[in-house]
Each structure stands twice: as C-alpha cells, then as structure tokens.
C-alpha cells in the first residue's frame, strides 16, 4: 500500500531564516506531487505541483520554491521566511490525475 511522509511535523523558525520541508511517498511510482498551504482560516491553497522529476509548476508567485530531486521526493524551500509564511503545509500525491492523497502535514510558525 502507498504511504506518504512529511517532516518535520512541527517547526518554529525566525523571520529571515531558511526553510526546507520534505515529503516522500512509498509504494507507487511516478506520482504527481503537490504542495498546499492551509492558513488559519481553513482554506487550502495549491502552491506547487510536479508531474515528474525536475518538473515543477508554480501556482502562486511567492517566497517559496519547490524541487523534486527524486521520483518520490518533493521538497518545499525558502531562502528567507516571512511572517506570512506561517501555516499548515500539506503534501499530496496522485496517480495520473485521479484522487489526491494527503500527508500528515507540517505546522510552520514564523516568529
């Protein structure tokens, strides 16, 4: 069966510091991968998606970037965090364009 991991689970970072969040998927090959951010007001915002190694599409221009160095690894990064980057970050995977399955999430607080 497929599983998706995210780490860390919780992160507190100062403004201006770098960020690296990691997502890995097991039990499937060549998945589509997604990064979402969920603000305190509940809504989910798609940040990036990837259909293959090195292929990244950005949905919203902002202070973040994504990379996919391996087939089942998706990384969300920032060089300098802003207060507005605080939120709950969710990674998801899908086979082709079917149902998306979500990881447990990372709670990021920028102080």
């Amino acid at each position, binding site marked *: 069966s497929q599983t998706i991991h995210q780490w860390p689970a919780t992160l507190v970072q100062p403004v201006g510091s770098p960020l690296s969040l990691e997502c890995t998927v097991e039990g499937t090959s060549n998945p589509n991968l997604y990064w979402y951010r969920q603000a305190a007001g*509940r*809504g989910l915002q798609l940040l990036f998606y990837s259909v293959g190694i090195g292929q990244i599409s950005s949905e919203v221009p902002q202070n973040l970037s994504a990379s996919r160095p391996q087939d089942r690894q998706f990384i969300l990064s920032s060089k300098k965090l802003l207060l507005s980057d605080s939120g709950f970050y969710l990674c998801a995977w899908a086979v082709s*364009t079917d149902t998306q399955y979500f990881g447990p999430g990372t709670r990021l607080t920028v102080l």
Partner: protein
Amino acid sequence: AQSVAQPEDQVNVAEGNPLTVKCTYSVSGNPYLFWYVQYPNRGLQFLLKYITGDNLVKGSYGFEAEFNKSQTSFHLKKPSALVSDSALYFCAVRDPSRSYQLTFGKGTKLSVIP
C-alpha cells in the same frame, strides 16, 4: 474558472440524527467532485468522489454524496451521525481541462452533539 462554495461555516447535529454538509460548484465542463475530512492537526482524508455514473456515491465511514447536475450541487450525507464524525469537511472540484488541480471549498466544521 472553477469554484466551490460551502455555504455553511459550521453545522451542528445531534448524535443519531441524519447530517448534510452542503457543496455547490462551478466548472466549465463535466466536474470531478471530491469530499475530504480533516481532523485537528491532521492531513486531509479522502471520503468519496464522483466522476461519472450513478448520482449517489457511497464512500468511507458510512458517508454518501448526491450529485445534482441541474443544481450544481454535491451534498455530503450520512443517515446517522456519530460524535466521532466531528471534524472539518472539504468539498473539492477538478475541471477536466485543468487536470492537475483541485479547487477546494473553505470547509465546513461539523459538530455532532452527544
């Protein structure tokens, strides 16, 4: 552009009573519709989806949803609510012309009262 509306921020229902969480959508083509549930500080869990076929879709944990094309709705239902159903529920739509993207509603908080 595709969009999803969940008109109720919160729904309260007594344990054992039927529950309905409402969702309406707007897409340019035939919609792919999804329901997810989220427990506090957890990721979203997939409940069910409608792609084509029977308008009544059955999913996990006894939930079902009814697709109504004329009303552009996809309401989530359960005949008898459990306290453990208390959570945040999200409706989502995928426009077939934008296959890689889901658009989510803002979520409805369901509280089941013992």
